[in-house]
């Protein structure tokens, strides 16, 4: 942060000169100092809790940390080698990927579907939106407490409902094949955050486009894919990225349903990456290994996001002013 370009005169006319758009490199010294003071909380926080923790985390991942003495013993790359050797890493990554591949598209489609309905209905949209948002306000722990019973394979309401149609529902929380769909279902129950983002985007699509299209004989389905989807592609893109990052860090529901105590009936299928990371760090106290796990996750997310941005840029339509 070089202050060399700052004008040294602290006279009364500084304001006028720095205000002009033609003098971009001239800063009023007092104003600049005040600016830095105002943002200083963030700078301090960034240095400690972002930059500091990242460097610290990197250092930990190359060491063995003794929690009692706080001493770090160099470990070379052994923590990272363990990532390759530990079968639970691959297993938990696989589970997490499976969950993400299932959850993200379903969330996008369901949220977009609901938002389109709300956008089209002429009466009661506000009421329905409020009701749909209530699950989002329900704390994760309450959601888990409810779904723990709803998803019970024998007595749960979901299977009771399925039985009504003659379907024998699965053992949601026991059968390894249904563990991930169970959590997806809970996630979908709280899909309204994504829905609200879509709804806001839908409001911004100019109505004239639909009028012109229907004059040209395009039906609702055609209009949806030829007008709506391209026009809100920015919101779709944003939601896909955010939901993917969230899906890779899924923790609360998985932990509360399966790892809260020792009664887990399907420990292989329900071991998500964030859960394993938590266990390694705060139950096994393998901080070095857990830090290496965190960095692996970070790299994976960076690569995924980069791919999404690259793909997204080919499809996303941006309105002029961004």
């Amino acid at each position, binding site marked *: *942060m070089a*202050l060399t*370009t700052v004008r040294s005169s602290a006279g009364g006319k500084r304001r006028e000169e720095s205000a002009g758009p033609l003098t971009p490199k001239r*800063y009023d010294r007092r104003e*600049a*100092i*005040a*600016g830095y003071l*105002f*943002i200083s*909380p*963030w700078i*301090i926080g*960034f240095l*400690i*809790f*972002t930059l500091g*923790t990242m460097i610290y*985390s990197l250092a930990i991942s190359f060491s063995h940390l003794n929690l009692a003495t*706080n001493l770090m013993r160099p470990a070379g790359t052994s923590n990272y080698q363990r990532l390759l050797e530990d079968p639970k890493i691959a297993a938990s990554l696989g589970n997490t990927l499976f969950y993400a591949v299932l959850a993200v598209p379903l969330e996008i489609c369901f949220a977009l579907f*609901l938002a389109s*309905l709300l956008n089209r209905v*002429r*009466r*009661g*949209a506000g009421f329905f*939106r409020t009701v*749909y948002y*209530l*699950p989002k*306000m*329900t*704390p994760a*722990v*309450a959601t*888990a*407490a409810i779904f*723990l*019973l709803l998803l*019970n394979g024998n*007595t749960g*309401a979901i299977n009771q409902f399925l039985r009504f149609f003659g379907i024998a529902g699965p053992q949601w929380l026991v059968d390894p094949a249904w563990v991930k769909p169970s959590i997806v279902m809970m996630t979908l*129950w709280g899909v*309204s955050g994504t829905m*609200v*983002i879509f709804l*806001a985007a839908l409001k911004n699509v100019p109505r004239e486009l639909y009028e012109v299209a229907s004059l040209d004989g395009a039906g609702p389905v055609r209009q949806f894919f030829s007008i709506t989807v391209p026009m809100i592609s920015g919101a779709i893109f944003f*939601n896909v990225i*955010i939901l993917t990052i969230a899906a890779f*860090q899924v923790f609360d529901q998985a932990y509360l349903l399966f790892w*809260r105590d020792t*009664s887990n009936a399907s420990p292989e299928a329900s071991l998500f990456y964030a859960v394993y*990371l938590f266990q390694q*760090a*705060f139950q096994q106290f393998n*901080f070095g290994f857990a*830090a290496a796990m*965190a960095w692996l*996750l970070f790299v994976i997310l960076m690569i995924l996001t980069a791919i999404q941005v690259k793909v997204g840029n080919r499809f996303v339509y941006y309105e002029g*002013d961004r």
Partner: protein
Amino acid sequence: MATIGASTKPGTLQPADAGRPSRRRRRWGIGQILLTALLIGFTALFLYPLVWLVSASLKPGSQVFDNSLIPKTWQWSNYADVWDQLPLLHWIFNSVVIAILAAGLVAVSSSVVAFGFAYFRFPARNLLFGLVLGTMMLPGSVTMIPTYLIWKQTGLLGSWVPMFGANLFGSAFYIFLQRQFYLGLPRELFEAARIDGASYWGMFWRIAMPLSIPSFVIVFLFEFQASWNNFQGALIYLNGGSLNNFTAPLGIAYAMTKYSPTNGGQGDYQYVMVASLLVTIPMLLLFSLGQRYFIEGVATQGRKG
């Protein structure tokens, strides 16, 4: 271009087809009826687990699993007994205090930082603001471990401080949101105050802050909810300590294990239901009071993308 408050009216999200001519009116028939029916169907789907929760909280332990929405036996005493069964009052009190501190601190600190980015001109401002936005992409699990170790070194482990301490330094999304708001305020307002002899702090405190109440409320409500929900943080920082020191989410997780019949618990799961309902209700109240702020905040999240 997300100017909060001015350009968007979150309270009026209903389709504005006031000026739409006859073609639309023709469709009021079967299409709208089907649409409304579908929406009512989804209403049932979204409400069912909550209604089920209310119902289960009023049943005796032996009937919690029977799934009838109207309890065969109405056991209102659950709501009296739960306070003896679990230190729920402690948990709720702890959660409220932590949430208020977390939300208040982050709302104030983010406002200050946001005003710094919005009003002042200084070298590397855009670079630094880019950095603010960049930190939003950082997954929480990368910083989780070192953050824990930092709190350990300060000797504050076991206290509540790690649950809200980092909020003292602002938070990226909230800084972004507040800055958008400040950018929407006319600069002349501040120039005039300068001429009248206001200090920079005075400009922020007497002019910017009072005008930015809407975005301040959004930030406060968002963080309040996030803190109220914060399970993983409580699991890391409070789980080892005394039961009375738990927050509500951690306490309910404890109660789930204590009363879950599947693993030798006592099977009085209705207390988990009562406790779950009692921590959900404040959030529903918060939403009913500040719905437009929540919706606006979420929509802003999307617009930044």
